[in-house]
């Protein structure tokens, strides 16, 4: 479907994320480092879960479509769990890193708050996850053909892009909620995060009924977004002040880019 579809889909999926990066991460080197490390952690979790799935498929070794689907479901569940485990591992690593950074640096305050870390790590996870889900599809969208000769929906590329658009912020929100819950030792929150992650991944099995998978995913994204907003210290008052450009802390912070 050529260049138009390629550009359209990539901006649909990565536009907001790009904006977030440019506005909040690009200016701060430390955030950038933690973003990329977060991406790397997600990558390692995907590698391990893919290895497990691959070995399971080779051992199982059947060409039956339903058996393959079962293996896929197992792979997806295992991958989700492993991703959350790695999110926790990253949290632990970041805590240790912060302590180390404090001893090394001259300043007395921690260079980066846990809240910011949670946002950055969630964004890193999300970006890497989005890239991996979409880049294969984007390269094929550059060609002349569109999906459908085997009966797939012609909206294949577009719906993949929209799904990625939902997944990336979801990772950010999950990151924020997860880290906050780990800080405050509220163990029911990570459990809910894992459950919602499983739910969203499970919804993708409903494809190609895209209204069945996309709409609930967006609803879950809104809900998680609200939860993350309140966890991060947001409130309706803050929101009003920010929108009317009267939030003094925000205005002051913006004058000293770091």
């Amino acid at each position: 479907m050529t260049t138009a579809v390629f550009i359209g889909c990539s901006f649909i999926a990565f536009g907001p994320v790009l904006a977030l990066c440019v506005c909040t991460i690009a200016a701060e080197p430390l955030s950038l480092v933690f973003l990329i490390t977060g991406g790397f952690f997600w990558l390692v979790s995907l590698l391990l879960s893919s290895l497990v799935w691959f070995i399971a498929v080779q051992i199982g070794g059947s060409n039956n479509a339903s058996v393959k689907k079962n293996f896929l479901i197992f792979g997806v569940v295992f991958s989700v769990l492993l991703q959350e485990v790695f999110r926790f591992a990253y949290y632990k690593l970041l805590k240790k890193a912060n302590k180390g950074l404090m001893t090394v640096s001259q300043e007395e305050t921690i260079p980066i708050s846990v809240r910011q870390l949670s946002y950055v790590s969630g964004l890193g996870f999300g970006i890497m996850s989005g890239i991996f889900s979409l880049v294969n599809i984007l390269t094929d969208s550059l060609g002349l053909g569109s999906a459908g000769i085997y009966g797939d929906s012609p909206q294949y590329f577009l719906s993949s892009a929209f799904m990625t658009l939902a997944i990336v912020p979801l990772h950010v929100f999950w990151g924020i909620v997860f880290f906050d819950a780990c800080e405050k030792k509220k163990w029911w929150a990570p459990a809910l995060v894992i459950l919602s992650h499983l739910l969203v991944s499970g919804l993708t099995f409903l494809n190609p009924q895209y209204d069945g998978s996309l709409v609930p995913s967006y609803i879950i994204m809104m809900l998680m977004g609200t939860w993350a907003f309140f966890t991060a210290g947001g409130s309706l008052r803050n929101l009003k002040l920010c929108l009317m450009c009267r939030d003094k802390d925000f205005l002051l912070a913006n004058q000293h880019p770091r």
Partner: protein
Amino acid sequence: KLTVRGEPSGCDLLFILNFVPFSSGFCWGNSVERKIYIPLNKTAPCVRLLNATHQIGCQSSMNGDTGVIHVVEKAQDLKWVLTDGPHPPYMVLLEGELFTRELMLQLKGSSRISGLAVAISKPSPAQGFSPGLKCPNDGFGVYSNDYGPQYAHCNWTVWNPLGNGLAYEDFSFPIFLLEDANETQVIKQCYQDHNLPQNGSVPEYPLCAMQLFAHMHAVTNTVTCMRRSSLQTAFSLNPEEVCDALSDYNVWSTLKPINASSKINPVDEVIIVATRIDSHSFFWNVAPGAESAVASFVTHLAAAEALHKVPDVQMLPRNIMFTFFQGETFDYIGSSRMVYDMKMDKFPIRLDNIHSFLELSQVALRNSSVLWVHTDPVSRRNESIQPQVETLVEALINSSVGANVTLQEVGQSQPLPPSSFQRFLRAKSIPGVVLADHRTSFQNRYYQSMYDTAENILMKYPEGLSPEETLDYVTDTAKSLAEVATVVARALYQLAGGTGNTSAIQADPRMVSRMLYGFLIKTNNSWFQSIIKQDLKGLLGDELPQHYIAVTSLVNTTQLVQYVLANLTGTVVNFTKEECLNPEKTPNPEKEMYVYTWVQGSRDPNSTSRVPFCVQSTVHLTKAASPAFELKQWGSTEYSTWTESRWKDIRARIFLIASKELEVSWCVSNNRRRC
């Protein structure tokens, strides 16, 4: 978590282990690509060939040509493509019956066609089909304005009246042959699901489209492309040649062994027996050539075998040279090269040594068992040639007594059909005949086409035979060709000065049948496996054998003819593998006359190992490349100048196309032509 449900594959793992650019190279056919495209695997392209003055064949754009598929099953369907259809350009899927010159010229003139796919017609078209010329190899034979002008350019006899000359036209769009009926059905199904107008309304996007990649690098003619190639090889560190000359090897063998590295005695006389071993069709490497080549050289091989069995053959006064010319389809590449080598003293035998010439042209479709004897009327006017020709014809007629072959001379004023003998006549007047199953125009209604298959020469096997049984089953065609071989062998014995009784000379129909099976149906059979060298596994395949000269050295046909000839005319000697592979290590004057081959032998019925042995034969290979390329006369009108273009990527695929992007991208890629 996987965002979209695709087929699970190891490619996902590769993707992770390697970086994106590396993996996308190794990961051909990743799951998303497999969702979008259906590759067409059993296709044959039409490629570009060039000679001194023209280019023929087909060309596609650099990144392939795409078009909306339209199936043309009757002539009226063409109107949609040429005028009515709202989504040009179209990619036409043509039934084999409609693949005619009139239709092709209509398509050639239209700018709404981006390519053509021809579905091979089963059974073959009843009215015949020949994409060759009406006058094959015109201008490169012996008849010209200086020699028999009334016979030049087929003024006297049109040899191939069904020839429509399609293979010698130049098309600016790609044309592919769909060899598999299942793939054709898949394309038609896609067309019926998406491209058919519903109740008179225009079909809506997404439409089913096809993309054909067949970009050819050479242009204009041989002079241009060879000049560019030589500039590249001279000045570039990484030369990108654009074309290659068609070349291969001729196979020849003598009845009495001669020393191939020196010249024979000037008084020695040799009788040359010749056949061609190649064919051609509109599409690249599709050249079954059953009647035009295979039947003739199989008969020749059988005659050679029959002669070698005669006990007193080594005492005959004259020698016989069995020659198999490669490339005769393209203006006599093999025979012109051999004549050139003989004139330049690069061949053991000189033109003066040639006593007479016997050629087997198309011999499989004999009408009521008549075999026609063609001679050259111009050379017969010579008083010394005429009696020799008469002796030749008489020997042939004598040999046909008792066999189911009736030899008849064609009228004395009729010229020779297209044959290798004409190249020898160009150099020197030699007495000779050409044997054929046609008196005037060809009996072969599929001359040099993809339909010149085993069915064309009426090879029929009963149902339910295993491959081994089919190999040994003697068809009527085999019996008929064996009779021709018997007549030829007996005549040659007489011509070579043999005085004994010829009734014992018989060609073996079973051997003829095996050869026909091996060269027309399946080369990977047990007999061929037992006569080839050990390390040539890739030589034998399971698909239908094709006999196109190509540009690579030693195509399968040449090698197989070499091994079959060695097996049929050679003797088994008791050498070890070392002695056989290196005969010069144990010096012996006898050994210079022979060629030794270590063949793998047949398989023991109980075990899986083979018993190899050494074959001593007089089979030699000699280069069959046009002298025009040796002399660097790329614009020569004297010698063949055929070259084949080079290309990078040839493939075909179908997919759905979603919207107007098609027109924009087609416009961008074909910026020269049609926007």
